[in-house]
């Protein structure tokens, strides 16, 4: 069974469109994340979310928004897509965002291409 799964794996869309990426984890973790990996492979945190708290990296445009229907899911919605949004987006989860030394488990990534 896949621990953290994302869909779709590939997403090609036009500028200005709105799209969503889904993420589900079956690990029973409390905290989920969205990371962006750019063309130089730099992995940068976008959001950290548990059922009590959303922490947003201040550099993330407000066109990006996480939506969590329940503890096992954290979807990423992107409005008015721009060329610069092209990247690989990773979902991750961990037992708790506040616990000391808690490793995160990652999904396989969604490669978003905006044309």
């Amino acid at each position: 069974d896949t621990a953290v799964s994302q869909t779709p794996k590939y997403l090609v869309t036009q500028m200005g469109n709105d799209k969503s990426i889904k993420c589900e984890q079956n690990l029973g973790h409390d905290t989920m994340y969205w990371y962006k990996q750019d063309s130089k492979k730099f992995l940068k945190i976008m959001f950290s979310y548990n059922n009590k708290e959303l922490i947003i990296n201040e550099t993330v445009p407000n066109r990006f928004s996480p939506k969590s229907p329940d503890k096992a899911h954290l979807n990423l919605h992107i409005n008015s897509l721009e060329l610069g949004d092209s990247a690989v987006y990773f979902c991750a989860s961990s037992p708790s965002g506040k616990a000391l030394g808690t490793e995160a488990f990652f999904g396989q990534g969604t490669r978003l291409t905006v044309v």
Partner: protein
Amino acid sequence: EDQVTQSPEALRLQEGESSSLNCSYTVSGLRGLFWYRQDPGKGPEFLFTLYSAGEEKEKERLKATLTKKESFLHITAPKPEDSATYLCAVDSGYALNFGKGTSLLVTP
């Protein structure tokens, strides 16, 4: 602000040629230093967590060590299947803060 710097950016080794990857970090209070491996087209895969200076952890040909300012990932007698990008991260309190990685290529 937490900072993580990895070196070298890229490393090419011959099979059996041991080496080390470096991760320098600056944090207000270390909550954990993490090593991940990432293969092309896949998500990062967890390798180790280190919590305090002097701590060491091993897995097959990999050994991670930690001082107050840096961590090393030692690779002993690497094989081609060890080729990957190795990522270092620190716990920033709400998420892992990653370095830019070291791309390792091991040739037969």
